């Protein structure tokens, strides 16, 4: 296992591995997203209070979950890059940022669209919404910082430190609805063994979360593969890959 990880730190092996892994993420994503969307948007029953409008949850919750998951991966990869100086970890962190930022943006906008008819407002400055907005700013700061340096090593160092500092926001987002009075409702999994959502509605939601998880995998792998080619453009193996055998 350890040997395998060390091998993965070599750009060439990393490139070949990501290339092989892409279909293993792409096809599960396609299957899960079709099942999840059809089940959630068509088969699942309407909500007793919110009617059909609640169905936006099938986009809102998976993207909100991913906005935090991707940030966690990004900070971890950044930390690994800092400590062990593995360039491929820096690549993973760098390509994750725009993906995570997009998930955050989707979570915020679907939340606003949901909030208008249900709460009566697009936006409120409660703890949940505000901390999620801060997450978006953290992603944007990470991306700008990463692009502000010519030297990729310095860029990775500075942005990884920022990513690790921003980690503190994740528990705040997660527990905001528990620690403070918020307009945003609590978590469905407040009691993990007894989720507050009917199983007929919960299953498609879980499937959508897995679909988004695989989507992140596909996007990260494709972008990481390209990033490696750009970074290693002067090495012989890249020339063989690009120019053909």
């Amino acid at each position, binding site marked *: 296992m350890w040997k395998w990880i060390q091998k993965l730190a070599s750009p060439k092996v990393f490139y070949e591995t990501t290339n092989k892994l892409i279909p293993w993420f792409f096809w599960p994503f396609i299957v899960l997203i079709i099942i999840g969307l059809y089940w959630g948007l068509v088969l699942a029953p309407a909500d007793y209070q919110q009617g059909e409008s609640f169905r936006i949850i099938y986009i809102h919750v998976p993207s909100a979950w991913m906005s935090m998951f991707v940030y966690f991966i990004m900070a971890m990869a950044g930390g690994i890059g800092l400590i062990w100086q593995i360039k491929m970890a820096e690549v993973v962190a760098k390509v994750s940022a725009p993906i995570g930022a997009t998930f955050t943006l989707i979570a915020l906008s679907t939340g606003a669209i949901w909030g208008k008819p249900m*709460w009566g407002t697009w936006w409120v400055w409660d703890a949940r919404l505000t901390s999620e907005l801060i997450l978006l700013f953290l992603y944007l700061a990470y991306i700008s910082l990463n692009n502000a340096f010519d030297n990729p090593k310095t860029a990775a160092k500075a942005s990884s430190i920022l990513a690790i500092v921003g980690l503190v926001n994740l528990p705040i987002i997660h527990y905001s609805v528990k620690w403070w009075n918020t*307009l945003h409702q609590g978590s469905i999994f407040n009691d993990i063994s007894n989720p507050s959502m009917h199983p007929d509605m919960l299953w498609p939601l879980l499937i959508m979360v897995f679909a988004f998880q695989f989507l992140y995998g596909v996007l990260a792998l494709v972008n990481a593969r390209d990033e490696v080619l750009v970074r290693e453009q002067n090495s012989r193996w890249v020339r063989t890959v690009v120019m053909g055998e």
Partner: protein
Amino acid sequence: MTKRQNRMTLVALLVFGVSLAGYFGIKAFNENLLYFFTPTDVLEGKAPKGKSFRIGGLVQPGSIIRDDLLVFFTLTDNKKTIEIHFEGILPDLFREGQGIVATGSLSDENVFLATEVLAKHDENYMPPEVAEALQNSSTKE
């Protein structure tokens, strides 16, 4: 210490320092992070006086009086209640027993004059039939 261990310690210190700063930050701003006060808070004088603030609770069943766009209702947190007076358009989810958050200020007679009323829904999602069945079984008890 090797260079790598050195870096590991630095990253660990960074995480520790930031968590500590976050903890004290949250502690310091705890009050400000509350989106609304409950009727009990307000009657105990915890809400700012003479200033606009938000109050949250449940609409007491049977308390809604409507007169065109004028609405009067009682807000409860199942301990204390406060009269609310509002003129304007209510969200669709506004109904008896519903959680709401109102913005406004307290009059001298302890009536809350709301300028905005938002509905707060909970994290319970179920089909209408299930909700009905739950309602029936709870009224039978």
